């Protein structure tokens, strides 16, 4: 692969191939993105050829040799003018033909995505300033669960994403899988994605949504069917109970302090609805919507002063003593 040099430690630490194409329209891993890329190369080839022809004509036009004419201004030769007129007419006809072909190609590609596809899984994705809420829906209420900034999907099957935004307009975009789709307050939008093979694909909000628009990323984790059902089964469980004194202390700090005002951890008293659900926080790859890798150190730093890592984030700083901070961080990391 072209640009797959080892880059940074982040993706390597996530077990990725540290490849430059983790968020790229040029490296499609799903049929929608692949069809768009094919169309893109077709447009690019034709456009480049047309551009080249125009440039050659322009260069020849200004550089070709000419007979000297005594008059200050040329009197156009009617025969030549007519000939040029015909050539231009042909050029315009060719231009129109190209645009007709482009429009039809574009329409057909578009139509292929718009056709409803059978899908097994429906995931509701809600955009917030500045994170993604992810709800797995099901007919049976006990089969539903919530997570954040990470969407796991089984490979090889279309997954329907239903979008909602309670605040401002966001845009969901995972370029390796499909084009983007806005999330608009008061409107229903959706997008069907499908991944060919297991992998982790990054996406980020593509519609300017306020001051931390830059740090509103999410990951789509495509897994084999068995890995996916295993993950799902794990996510359906309530949070893991703390099994040592420090974790118990951490849970107690979480529930009795400010944290529980905004965050939910199922199986505990924490039921806040403002921030991300943290029931299985320890299983996630990143914190603060892709701002940093999920590690004990980053997490403690984030809780101690969220405004430093992500200025203007909605999460307020929480005054905790050193031991409390460490206990909460350990506790959250234990929630696999």
């Amino acid at each position: 692969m072209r640009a797959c040099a080892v880059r940074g430690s982040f993706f390597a630490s996530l077990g990725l191939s540290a490849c430059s194409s983790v968020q790229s329209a040029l490296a499609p891993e799903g049929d929608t993105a692949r069809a768009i890329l094919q169309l893109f190369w077709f447009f690019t080839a034709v456009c480049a050829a047309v551009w080249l022809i125009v440039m050659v004509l322009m260069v020849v036009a200004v550089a070709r040799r000419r007979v000297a004419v005594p008059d200050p201004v040329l009197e156009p030769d009617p025969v030549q003018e007519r000939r040029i007129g015909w050539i231009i007419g042909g050029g315009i006809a060719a231009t129109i033909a190209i645009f007709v072909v482009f429009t039809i190609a574009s329409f057909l590609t578009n139509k292929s995505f718009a056709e409803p596809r059978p899908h097994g899984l429906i995931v509701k994705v809600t955009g917030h300033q500045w994170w993604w809420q992810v709800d797995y829906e099901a007919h049976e209420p006990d089969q539903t669960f919530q997570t954040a900034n990470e969407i796991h999907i089984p490979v090889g099957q279309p997954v329907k994403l239903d979008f909602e935004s309670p605040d401002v307009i966001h845009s969901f975009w995972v370029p390796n899988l499909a084009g983007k789709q806005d999330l608009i307050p008061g409107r229903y939008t959706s997008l069907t994605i499908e991944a060919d093979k297991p992998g982790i694909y990054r996406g980020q909000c593509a519609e300017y949504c306020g001051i931390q628009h830059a740090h509103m990323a999410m990951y789509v984790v495509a897994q084999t069917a068995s890995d996916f059902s295993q993950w799902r089964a794990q996510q359906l469980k309530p949070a893991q109970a703390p099994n040592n004194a420090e974790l118990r202390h951490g849970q107690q700090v979480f529930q009795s302090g400010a944290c529980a005002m905004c965050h939910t951890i199922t199986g505990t008293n924490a039921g806040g609805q403002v921030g991300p659900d943290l029931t299985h926080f320890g299983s996630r790859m990143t914190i603060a919507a892709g701002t940093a890798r999920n590690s004990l150190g980053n997490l403690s730093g984030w809780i101690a002063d969220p405004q430093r890592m992500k200025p203007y984030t909605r999460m307020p700083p929480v005054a905790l003593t050193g031991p409390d901070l460490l206990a909460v961080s350990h506790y959250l990391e234990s929630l696999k």
Partner: protein
Amino acid sequence: MSAGSEPLRDTDLGEAELEARITSLWRTPRGLIGWLSSVDHKQIALRYIVTAFLFMGLAGIGAVLMRLQLATPDAHVVGPDRYDQLFTMHGSTMMFLFAVPIMQAVGLYFVPLMIGTRDVAFPRLNAFSYWMYLFGGLMLWFCFLSNNGPDVGWFSYTPLALTQYNVGHRADFWAQMITYTEVAGLAVAAITIVTVFKMRAPGMTLDRIPVFVWAALVTAFMVLFAMPAVMVASTMLILDRLVNTHFFDVSLGGDSLLWQHLFWFFGHPEVYFIFIPATGFVSTIIPVFARRPMFGHTAVVLSLVATGFLSFGLWVHHMFVTGLPRLGESFFTASSMAIAVPSGVQIFCWIATLWSGRPRFATPLLFVLGFIFNFVIGGMTGVMVASVPLDTQVHDTYFVVAHLHYVLIGGSVFPLIAAVYYWFPKVSGRMLSETLGKWNFWIAFIGFNLTFFPMHILGLEGMPRRVYTYSADMPWGGLNLLSTIGAIIFAFSFLMLFWNIARSLMRGAAAGSNPWDAETLEWATTSPPPPQNFTRIPVVSSLMPLWENRETLPAITGMRADRREVLVGTLTEAEPDLRESSPDPSIWPLFAAIATGITFLWSIYTPWAVIYGALPITITLIGWFWPKGTKEDES
């Protein structure tokens, strides 16, 4: 002059005496009051142009700051708050305070000269429009400098721009800046239309109107039809923010997409307000430097008109990912591609003119060739973003940033600089340095492409727009650094342009009245033109009057020599209809603009300002229109 006696006419006087008399009639009074009262279209247009370039400089510095912030990952040159203000100010300034006004202003300067008249149709309205524009721009930049600049993008999408998500008055300043500049833009549009329709020199029938004048006319009509949409939208936004109307508030029955429809119904034609005058420059410059008449003059004019119409049918291509019906979106793919056809016609005609002419490589032509190079790239990426599937990938990414700068800078600023090199001798009476000009071109050309070409790749590699930083883990560092280096080079090219201008004003070679041996009427008068433009109104018998009549232009006689007088003609044939007096300088337009400006600014804080402000506005308007007992105009 006593009643009943024959007024003094140009036939009663000798050539020298007539010229002195008419010049003193049209001269702007000296002193500060005189300067503030000027109604001379050339002075006002120059003020517009200089002000617009100053705003461009400010917005350009903003762009360089943004590029420095993005040059490396996780940089801290500016924080997110400043960055968001910067990109909002950059876009708003470049569009509303630089590109649209400067294109209109070049028209204000040259349209009367090119059609052989002495001033625009409504000179006082013209003065008023400039002051409104100036106040709007100053207000916006004072807000920014006091860290209170708008931060919701030049497009100010709702609901982000509503009070729930944008506390304080930042978005109000943005919306009110729109009001100021729209008042100015609409005034200039009305002035341009009436001037072109009614004040052309005798004999300048429709088929003898220069291409640039057509471009100014088409643009003026587009402004007239497109600007009300954004004016309504920004007023609705202010009302939502100020008095809790709920046009855009979803939770109370409003609609967040309504804003986008209204904004882009204006916003897309706006791109063409900038581009159409630019093609007018190109079609003016190419024949002069190819040393032959324009190939396909009629086709080029019709292309401008067609572009004007089609530009109103494309706005939805800014909204392809908002979830509108797919079939409806495909219609806008077709219309967006259709608009490339008239542009294609023009490009073919320009190349044909060069092909069959004898091109002379002066700086204006170099910038025009650079324009063709860049604009065709921008046009091609424009065709790509017109395609719904392709747009779903590249929309709101750096690919679009690249595209729009290729169209706006490559397609409009390059012709604008060509126009500066071309017309500067007329405006100042001095030539710009050709050597500096050629350096200026190559540095601008290389800097521009180095800045913006890599952005295409960045967008495809997944970099969204309007992010103040990106992680070192993303593969975007190298191209961003390259782009920043390009931006610094490109910014340097503007310093060269300004240096060239300053140097030339001090010790440039004298230009003479027609240094390029051009064919249109502005070159028939002295450089710089006298206050009255033409002592005798010329009579036109050709599309290229100065190439047809190489010795002297025929002129009409019988104009009065004791008052400011212009000739009003018929719409299509430009047959002289009546002689009309043209208003004298007046300070009242300035007062009216101050009163209106204060009302607009005040109304950000209270709706009552509209009521209280009406009184001073009325007083200034009474002063402005105070009857002077001028006699009826004569047929």
